[in-house]
């Protein structure tokens, strides 16, 4: 891609994201019905476009636009937190492996290989369904399933992060300034803290922008199977699943599926675009 095109797509992606984020954060002040307020007598009203319900109502008469914007907040929060958690685990893991090298590196990478050889999604699903039995106990500790979900996402996405971080820190640890610090007798912890982690920041940023859309997709996937975000909270995945479940030629309510799906597609598209552009920039 030409640099000019790249700049333009980056701007486009960021603009789209800002627009969506702005709307979803302003939603509570917009003249829209509450996302959770039900009106059973108004279920499945078609989009009215210029007045409420602008994009129609769902099975329970809830406003789809308002729900989609509320879902955006949840999905984006899940994407960000999940990604941060994955980075929080993956980056130090990879950085340490890369910095120490040798046997420690091999051991740590073998553990990563083991995780890679698991059908992690299947295992995570399995774990989530089991943990569900203990929801009452978890509630006593102020935990909800969404917190477990973050853990699951961390478990699923720390591997690629760790690999990238390892490669980067291998490269960095050969860099002259790290060698110089080492020659001066700096401890490894110090090198890790002062040299490696700060210098990993750009590639971590790229990693993050590439991971967020994957986490959002994963959230949608798990919510679809009934193991992600729990009602009455909404997320795009849940909304799309609801829409899909209610699809029938008899009811003809395409908007229940299409509206949240479009919102999800648009923002993931923008996120992917930003991620790709950042990556290309890093590489060139």
């Amino acid at each position, binding site marked *: 891609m030409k640099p000019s095109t790249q700049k333009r797509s980056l701007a486009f992606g960021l603009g789209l994201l800002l627009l969506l984020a702005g709307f979803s954060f302003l939603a509570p002040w917009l003249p829209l019905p509450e996302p959770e307020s039900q009106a059973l007598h108004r279920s499945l009203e078609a989009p009215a476009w210029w007045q409420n319900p602008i994009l129609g109502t769902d099975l329970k008469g809830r406003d789809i636009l308002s729900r989609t914007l509320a879902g955006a907040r949840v999905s984006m929060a899940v994407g960000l937190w999940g990604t941060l958690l994955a980075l929080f685990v993956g980056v130090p893991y990879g950085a340490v492996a890369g910095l120490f090298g040798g046997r420690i590196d091999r051991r740590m990478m073998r553990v990563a290989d083991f995780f890679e*050889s698991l059908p992690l999604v299947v295992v995570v699903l399995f774990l989530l369904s089991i943990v569900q039995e203990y929801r009452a106990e978890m509630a006593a500790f102020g935990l909800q399933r969404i917190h477990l979900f973050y853990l699951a996402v961390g478990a699923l996405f720390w591997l690629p992060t760790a690999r990238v971080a390892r490669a980067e820190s291998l490269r960095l640890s050969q860099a002259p300034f790290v060698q110089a610090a080492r020659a001066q007798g700096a401890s490894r912890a110090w090198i890790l803290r002062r040299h490696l982690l700060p210098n990993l920041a750009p590639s971590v940023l790229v990693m993050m922008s590439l991971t967020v859309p994957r986490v959002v997709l994963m959230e949608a996937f798990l919510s679809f199977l009934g193991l992600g975000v729990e009602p009455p909270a909404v997320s795009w995945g849940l909304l799309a699943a609801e829409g899909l479940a209610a*699809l029938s030629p008899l009811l003809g309510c395409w908007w229940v599926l*299409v509206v949240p799906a479009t919102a999800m597609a648009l923002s993931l598209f923008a996120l992917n675009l930003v991620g790709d552009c950042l990556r290309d920039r890093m590489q060139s």
Partner: protein
Amino acid sequence: MNNPILRRGLAWLATLFAVHAACFLLVRGVRGGPFDQERSLPPEVEASLRQQFHLDESLWRQYGRSLGQVLRGDFGPSMRYRDVEVGQILADSLPVSLALGGLALGVALAFGISGGLWAAFRRGFGFSLAFRFMTSLFLAVPNFVVAGVGILIFSFILGWLPPAGYGSLRHWILPSFALGLPFAAQIGRLSRNAALEVLESPDFRTARAKGLPPGPLLFRHVLPQVLIPVSAFLGPASAGLLTGSLVIEQVFALPGMGAHFVQAALNRDYTLSLAVTLIYTALLGACTFAADLLAKWLDPRVEAI
């Protein structure tokens, strides 16, 4: 331990062993018996059932029994479908999942490679933007949304394809496209990049300058080079297809293993969910291994096995 294939095989077995032990413990530790139903069973009946499934023995003996069953390839009767062997369920459902995965992979490869090549040959700004847009779109949308929109258009509006179920070839079209298209997008990008690299290489320019017709040019020079990165992607792709089939089978009411898996976990069908998790682990290992072998076979420069 120097033989890479042997080493890989041993690692695979160790993984299976670890997964089995972990799942076994988790599933036994969890609350809520497998036998509570709408009409609760009298205590002595439940006791007899527990005895039948050896739930009354010590954990170690249960573990030994379960391990022995797995080694024999006999998973015993399902706890939910008490008169059916888990082996029978797997024998019925595995072909469905494999067929779905195989068809989706076919869709992904056929559309991905041809789209990627086309995009590489036609390098207009508008076209490349359109290609980028299409691939980004399919990468950005979860497969159940693709499935839903597909059902909406091809089943409800046009009435061409059935909305669910299975039986004839017609039933397979929507599921395999819904599952395959996101991977087609990925493969399309990979093959476009690889093809561009070939098109810009001096060798290719020489061959073209010699006046080689486009057919042989494509099939002897470009496509084989494109298949190398694509085959490297087959490992992750098969993992993704396995995961995706969980959802797609649910959407289209296909009796594959994925649907079994989700339900078995929810129904606490200990024997079945354990067997399915193991099979997924084994399949994933086998698929990535096969993909790696294939990549190596196609391109001996590849080292990682």
